[in-house]
């Protein structure tokens, strides 16, 4: 269960990588909730909250430039909505920031707050998945009560995504080599439909072969893994640090920054 392009950082080794996946998953969810609880126009306090994902990423040896590029790639939907905000709220707001003071509108503040929250929560999510192997994350989710059918489904899906994406690339190259001009809407859509259809047939055949191979090895509808999940001392230390940080941010820094 490994592909070089996406989760290469999950296979490194660092203090963060060695933590139990359950602790990291719960910490990520809790921290995200606290970020969303921040006021809708508070901007500068977000930078204090950004310290936590930043620390995880840096201690986990994940390059910050990779993280920033990845966040930019997934940002268009939220950016469009955030940039629409200034048009709908023109109330002037005066801002004082250290020796500087200027006036802007509340729409721009909300826009900045939304983008800031987006960056913090995305950086946190990337910190989780690039310091945790997907198999461990799945095991953690199963331990925490996710239905076994869904866990198995996710495992298979992750295993075969890249196989089938490679196959799709072959088909796209074949089409590019044969189609020399625009064929008109009907032919174009029919060609795409045929490609998807043949990809579907190929997938079903692949699944059949996988099934035969698994039956031959005694698969009875249940995965058995060698890896045991066990909480260690470092997980408790991490949890304690996390609780301390979140309490500090929520009860001391957040009121002070208002």
């Amino acid at each position, binding site marked *: 269960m490994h592909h*070089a392009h*996406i989760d290469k950082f999950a296979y*490194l080794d*660092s203090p963060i990588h060695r933590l139990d996946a359950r602790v990291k998953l719960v910490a990520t*969810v809790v921290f*995200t*909730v606290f970020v*969303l609880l921040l006021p809708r*126009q*508070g901007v*500068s306090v977000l*930078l204090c909250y950004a*310290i936590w994902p930043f*620390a995880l990423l840096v201690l986990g*040896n994940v390059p910050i430039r990779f993280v920033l590029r990845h*966040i930019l790639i*997934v940002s268009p939907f*939220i950016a469009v909505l*955030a940039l629409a*905000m200034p048009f709908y*709220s023109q*109330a002037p*707001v*005066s*801002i004082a*920031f250290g020796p500087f003071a200027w006036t802007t509108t509340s729409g721009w*503040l909300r826009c900045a707050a939304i983008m800031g929250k*987006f960056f913090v929560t*995305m950086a946190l*999510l990337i910190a989780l*998945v690039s310091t945790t192997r*997907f198999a461990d*994350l799945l095991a953690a989710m199963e331990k925490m009560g996710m*239905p076994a059918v*869904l866990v198995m*489904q996710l495992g*298979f*899906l992750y*295993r075969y*995504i890249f196989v*089938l*994406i490679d196959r799709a690339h072959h088909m796209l190259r074949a089409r590019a080599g044969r189609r020399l001009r625009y064929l008109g809407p009907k032919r174009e*859509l*029919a060609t*795409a*439909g*045929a*490609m998807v*259809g043949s*990809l*579907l*047939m190929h997938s079903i055949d692949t*699944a059949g072969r*996988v*099934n035969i191979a698994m*039956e031959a090895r005694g698969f009875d*509808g249940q995965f058995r893994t060698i890896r045991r999940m066990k909480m260690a001392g470092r997980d408790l230390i991490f949890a304690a640090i996390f609780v301390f940080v979140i309490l500090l941010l929520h009860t001391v820094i957040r009121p*002070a*920054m*208002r």
Partner: protein
Amino acid sequence: MANELLSVPVAAGTIFIAGGGLAAVCRKAKQTLTNEKLPLMGVLGAFVFAAQMVNFQLPLMPGTSGHMVGAVLLAIVLGPHAGAIVMSSIVIIQCLVFQDGGLLALGCNIINMALVPTYIGYYVFRLFSGDGLGRGGMYTGSIVACVVAMEAGALLVPIEAAVSGVLLVPFTTFLYTMLGVHLLVGLIEGVVTAFVLEYLRDVRPQILTGGLAGEGRMSTIAVYVTLLISALILGAGLSLVASSNPDGLEWSYKERPDQPQFRPAVGNDSQVVAAADRLQDRFAPMPDYSVRASEHAETEVGGDRTGGPWAGWTSFAGVFGSLLTMAVVWGIARMLRHRPASRVPA
């Protein structure tokens, strides 16, 4: 849907609904699925990702290209239960592996993009095509099913955002934009789905008739009851949350301080409504601040209150303190990184 457009109660509520729905579907699927279906579902989930790579030029819009989403196709080929599980797993993978959509928005995304489109799409398609493989029924069925399924999912996004009240964009504008865009998306999706089905019918019809989807169908009554109950739960839950912190929705019709000549589109001056408003003001868990008050409150954000001798300095200190802390963390990490044990080939 993204984390930042949701308030915490809405996120929690939708995660609860999505989790409950998914658990029910999984239990249902467990009764009807055989072991050889498990690899099939997994591989078909991966197939949807690969199918999204197959792009095509859009008619009437030169220079742009589209790809299919695949929810309705999956539901037609696998049946609604397995289709819903596969689509949900795709949404989860998109969130965790490709970081598309946030962790707390996962509930919304599972409802909007997996549960609603697969079930609605499947039953609308069956309504038109029946069990046969007639060409007309297949085309109209898949186009109508895709449009309805896409619009149903798209309809939920502005509702969830409005109930959360984070977004300032008026509800109706957002709604019409979403519905308009997804009408187009649904039409194209429907046409491509029809072409895929026609190809499969010509080349390997047993995929469509051979009982991949045949097992595990619910009775029609069960479907309607499920839909009704989920609509009631959703409506009740959302209205509870809505009464406690309205913002975007209410803002769109109450008054517009920036435009004094604005006339509310929806007005109701009756005594009952006024009394209900007073009642709500008194008992609402988080009483609603008036629009004007909120505009005043906004002077204190970004930095701090503009009055007072310390104006702006705490936020100044906070920002620079944060940057300093990050620098320290970075320095510590660099020192740790030089240990040979932490070097592992990528």
